[in-house]
């Protein structure tokens, strides 16, 4: 994550008396940072829901920190508060929920907030606390078609970083040349792409002729600190055997090879992707807004030498893991975790991440508890009403306690789809449940 352009901070007691102060700050900051009126109001609504919810769930002596940050193409509100283990349960989406009772909707602050913004993320805050991040993207006009004659394949070209106007032109060329399945939706908004690159969250290379005509390009973004996702390479009117695609991918890899990223992921691959660079991790199914689904092959390559490692897993996952590790040639020492009567906390906690651009909700465990099965079930019941119909669950095999969720997931219709090497403390298993599937 890059540094914000500008930031405002406010610290308030967890008391409803300060609600209007908090929402005023967020509204003013969001508008000053360039978020349009409707977007600002949605961000204010989400902040209001969460602040109110935390005032009810927390203690009045708690202090809540609110940060409103300008990140070029989006505004982010961070809500940080100290958490005692005893009230962690409140951070479940389903906390305080009595199904079938309309009066309890006021207690669904996290869920309502998740529906108001483009992304809602929650993470533990070192040393003791929780950080909720609300992200609302700014509005950009859709790109217009570029009227240009198709260039001949380049005899010579160079690969370099783009100027701002070239970023916009590159985005428009992708939009004109490739089907929407081969590029993320942001290419429809060239100005947004320019801001994404300017903000440092995205990297980009283009291949240009000696007179600076764009013949191709590739771009990538950081997903957290250790995984990078690449898009493309995209080529425009180049010969099928052109080495340009390989040059672009090599350039991308050279750019991130010595960063702290350990893996490169590719979900939007084109026919021009050179062979021999990636490994297939498996496939994920994504629900589309029109209720159809799209299966995507997930390609991956490690950027560092795999050191081999120990992973923790429930016996129910052993066979799946053995097959995946054998197929991917990953040296792993699988240690099985079983509950043998030891005392566990009563309540588990799940963090939910909403990503509207991908129509996905991702759950991650942040606290183990004996109610894991019921908690997962409650989340499925609640989220199946959400229009974001792709539900994923990520288990970190580096945290032995997370293995306890395995049975709960399998019992609730989740299927292990793939293993992301080194995506967490250790490898991460991604489960998926398509929301139209009935509960078993």
């Amino acid at each position, binding site marked *: 994550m890059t540094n914000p352009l500008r930031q405002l901070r406010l610290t308030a007691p967890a008391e409803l008396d300060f609600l209007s102060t908090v929402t005023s700050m967020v509204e003013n900051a969001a508008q000053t940072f360039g978020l349009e009126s409707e977007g600002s109001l949605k961000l204010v609504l989400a902040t209001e829901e969460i602040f109110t919810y935390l005032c009810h769930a927390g203690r009045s002596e708690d202090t809540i920190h609110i940060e409103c940050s300008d990140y070029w193409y989006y505004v982010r509100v961070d809500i940080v508060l100290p958490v005692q283990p005893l009230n962690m349960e409140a951070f479940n989406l389903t906390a305080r929920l009595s199904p079938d009772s309309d009066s309890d909707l006021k207690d669904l602050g996290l869920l309502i907030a998740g529906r108001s913004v483009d992304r809602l993320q929650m993470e533990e805050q070192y040393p003791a606390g929780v950080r909720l991040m609300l992200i609302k993207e700014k509005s950009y006009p859709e790109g217009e078609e570029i009227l240009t004659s198709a260039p001949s394949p380049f005899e010579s070209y160079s690969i370099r970083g783009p100027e701002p106007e070239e970023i916009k032109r590159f985005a428009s060329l992708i939009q004109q040349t490739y089907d929407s399945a081969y590029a993320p939706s942001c290419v429809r908004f060239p100005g947004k792409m320019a801001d994404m690159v300017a903000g440092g969250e995205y990297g980009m290379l283009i291949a240009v002729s000696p007179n600076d005509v764009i013949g191709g390009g590739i771009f990538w973004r950081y997903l957290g600190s250790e995984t990078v996702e690449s898009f493309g390479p995209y080529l425009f009117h180049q010969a099928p055997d052109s080495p340009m695609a390989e040059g672009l991918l090599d350039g991308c890899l050279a750019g991130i090879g010595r960063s702290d990223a350990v893996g490169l992921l590719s979900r939007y691959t084109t026919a021009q992707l050179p062979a*021999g660079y990636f490994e297939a991790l498996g496939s994920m199914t994504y629900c589309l807004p029109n209720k159809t689904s799209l299966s995507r092959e997930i390609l991956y390559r*490690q*950027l*560092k030498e*795999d050191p*081999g490692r120990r992973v923790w897993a429930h016996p129910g996952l052993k066979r799946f893991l053995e097959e995946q590790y054998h197929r*991917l*040639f990953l*040296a792993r020492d699988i240690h099985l975790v079983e509950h043998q009567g030891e005392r566990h906390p009563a309540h588990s906690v799940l963090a939910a991440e909403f990503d509207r651009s991908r129509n996905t909700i991702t759950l991650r465990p942040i606290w183990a508890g004996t109610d894991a099965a019921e908690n997962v079930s409650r989340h499925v019941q609640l989220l199946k009403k959400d229009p974001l119909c792709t539900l994923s669950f990520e288990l970190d095999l580096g945290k032995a306690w997370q293995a306890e969720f395995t049975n709960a997931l399998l019992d609730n219709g989740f299927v292990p789809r793939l293993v992301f090497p080194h995506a967490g403390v250790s490898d991460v298993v991604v489960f998926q449940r398509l929301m139209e599937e009935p509960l078993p």
Partner: protein
Amino acid sequence: MNVDLNKLVPAYIRKFEAYIPSKPDDELQKLYGCGPIIRLNNNENPLGPPSSAQEVLRRFPPPRAAVYPSGDSFHLRRKLAGLYGLDPDQILVGNGANEVIAFVIKAFCKEGDNIITAEKTFAVYEWVAEFSGFHAKLAPMKDYGFDDQGMLARIDDRTKILFLCNPNNPTGTYWSEGKLRRFLDRVAGHRIVVVDEAYFEFVEQEDYPNGIELLREYPNLVVFRTFSKMYALAGLRIGYLVGNLDVVDIIRKTCVVYSVNSLAQEAALAALDDERHILRTRDMVKRGKAFLTDELTRLELPFVLGEGNYIMIRLPMSDTLAYRRLMQFGVMIRSMTGFRFPNFIRVTISERPAMEAFVRALENILE
């Protein structure tokens, strides 16, 4: 009580990724279910240390371990000075050449300064600069070699040091004496120029320069050498730098004394006397290169082969995948994505059985 690391840790450290070295052989054998590991990843010398150094190791009296070593490697510096016709104070010995890289950067750079090196070379110059809070400016390679013009063009008011790896690891390219002199003339003493000669003893080309012989003419020149490669003392960690007396006096201020252990100092001292070891090693490398050239040509795999005891091979698969697959045959190579050469691997030239095992494993994973 918790430590607030967010406040304590500088941003340039937070963004830096720690280097994770490979696990010990016994752990790797368990993880990969393979036999003894053939290590072709670190450019070590499979012949082991010169026999004179081995004798020192065998005879080292255990009670000496209780006594601090010579804090400044007194005898070793005198011996090196005698060999090169230098004042012993022109030499600083470190815990491997990596340590002397840090000495130089600490001695000359302050906040806002930068160093210049190549984009695709030994990573430690760049790493030490970056995690010390200094910017590393990287010049793209030209024909797999350092680009002198590209480096000169990147010099600005805040540039303090230019690092040249000669011959370059991992490509094996080198600058001739003429090219190095022209570069030093252009720098004109305004910046420190470090020439890392870690693989000096492997090079037999007539136009390959001996940096130490240029010190009198170029007082801004600092030369690195190591005992880890040709002299096969990598496990003892010992290397050194040589420079102009005034320059080394400055670097000495940042030097950690007592960092080089007694065993390393004495083994290095003995190693310098064994000229036959160098000839045997060069012969082994020559034969290994010829064998691999034939085999890689047969397998139709492109490769980059120059000076030094290593070769770079382009694979039709991800180098990190090749690393994992070769490990299953007990063969450990260096993947090159981290050197900004994706899908290349670097292989240490070794003795025939190891080279044959590597080729067998390679053929297997390419099937």
